[in-house]
């Protein structure tokens, strides 16, 4: 059993070197797929990370009825905190409201009106899972229905715009990603089929000598895996080059620190190997009865 495995492994490496040109073509196809995929993912992750930084847009401002006592207000504030989708909140008492007023209007409200009529209220952050216009409307309406709440609002135009951008990005990269993936699988299996086609005679002979389909398939599958490994290594080298270039150009211009998503290396290796694997499996299947 062991000797059969060593034989087949050596076979697959020899096969890789014998069909050098198609193997290189296959590897490059895989590499290009991975580079496009990774870049798209890289920018998508950074965009999402970037928009998530504007947490200010994802909060709901609540004003209580002006007659409400301090203790009822606190009670109400705590009730709102319990609503699903609310991550945290800041209680705004009369003092805080006045200082906010002063911050915006550069004047003390007591100087203008004589006393402080500003209502108490709260500022509530929305958890990431609920940051869509639909969800935020739902939460806002729920808050408005509560006793003692005068008004609750969020900047829905900003939210829906950000939400729209993320949605589009996600949909776009998904469609492009799947298209690239499919094209790549077809390309890889076609190049492998090209390799196999020239070996059709040998495959027939192997069948006549009593080789099973898996015995014949194994070296080709391994070849696909090697091509995936080579392809993903090429992709990673190119991506690191691209990243240092990007750091040099973009980061020095706009002072945005772009982060490399976790799993970039592992992801590329895994997807690369899977591509090679599926490609070669598809390629060889046609020739095995």
């Amino acid at each position, binding site marked *: 059993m062991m*000797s059969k495995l060593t034989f087949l492994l050596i076979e697959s490496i020899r096969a890789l070197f014998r069909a050098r040109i198609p193997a290189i073509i296959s590897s490059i196809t895989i590499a290009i797929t991975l580079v496009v995929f990774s870049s798209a993912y890289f920018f998508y992750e950074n965009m999402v990370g970037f928009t998530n930084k504007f947490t200010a847009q994802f909060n709901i401002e609540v004003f209580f009825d002006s007659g409400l006592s301090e203790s009822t207000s606190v009670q109400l504030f705590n009730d709102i905190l319990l609503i699903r989708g609310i991550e945290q909140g800041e209680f705004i008492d009369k003092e805080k409201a006045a200082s906010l007023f002063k911050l915006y209007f550069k004047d003390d409200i007591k100087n203008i009106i004589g006393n402080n009529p500003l209502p108490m209220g709260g500022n509530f952050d929305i958890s990431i899972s609920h940051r869509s216009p639909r969800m935020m409307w739902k939460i806002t309406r729920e808050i408005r229905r509560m006793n003692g709440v005068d008004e609750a609002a969020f900047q829905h135009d900003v939210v829906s715009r950000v939400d729209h951008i993320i949605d589009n990005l996600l949909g776009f990269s998904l469609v492009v990603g799947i298209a690239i993936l499919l094209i790549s699988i077809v390309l890889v299996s076609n190049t492998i089929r090209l390799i196999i086609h020239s070996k059709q005679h040998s495959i027939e002979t192997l069948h006549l*000598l*009593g080789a099973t389909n898996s015995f014949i398939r194994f070296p080709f599958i391994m070849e696909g895996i090697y091509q995936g490994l080579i392809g993903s290594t090429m992709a990673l080298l190119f991506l690191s080059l691209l990243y240092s270039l990007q750091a040099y150009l973009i980061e020095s211009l706009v002072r945005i620190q772009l982060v490399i998503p976790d799993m970039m290396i592992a992801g590329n290796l895994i997807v690369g190997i899977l591509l090679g694997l599926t490609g070669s499996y598809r390629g060889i299947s046609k020739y095995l009865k």
Partner: protein
Amino acid sequence: MIQFENVTATYADDVGIFDLSFHIEKGEMVFLMGPTGAGKSTVLRTIYKDILLNDGSLYIDGQDITDMRSRKIPYYRRKIGMIFQDFRLIEDRTVFENVALPLNILGLPNKEIKSKVSEILEKVGLDSVTKMRPSQLSGGEQQRVSIARALVKDPVVILADEPTGNLDPNVSDEILDLLELATNNGTSVLMSTHNFPLIRPRKKRYIELSDGRLVQK
């Protein structure tokens, strides 16, 4: 060792082999005679399970292979040696690797493979060309490689389909010598040919086919 009982195998209504019955003993060498298109290759293909039977039964080495499931065919083929007119060697492998292939398929340990292959290559007189590619050899040498590849697994049966079809008469005789030698170990040999003068001096039994049917003598 090989037993045909009323075997019919057809490609189309009137094309193929029909109602064949014959028997070949263990260690016997038998020739399958007949002009081109008589059905010789078809007989051999039924034995190595390359085509299905329409009717009749087929026993090899005591095993009923009439309706063998396709999953089992590879394992069955491992005890059958096959030799073809066009040699069917694998071009990008050395002589040694070609002969070792059946043993790689069997999964024998490397050491055993080495000694068996060396031994058989010496037997067929090819021990000086083990590292060459088939294309670097003459036709007769290539056919000896394919005989070595068939012999190396100690087959119960050797099927040779016009093995001398591409070779000179004196080279053909050497090939026949080698095949006859194989019967000493109890291997049965069934060889097809349309060259009667070649086999006549050997005084072996032969089965004659015409239009897919046995010619009664």
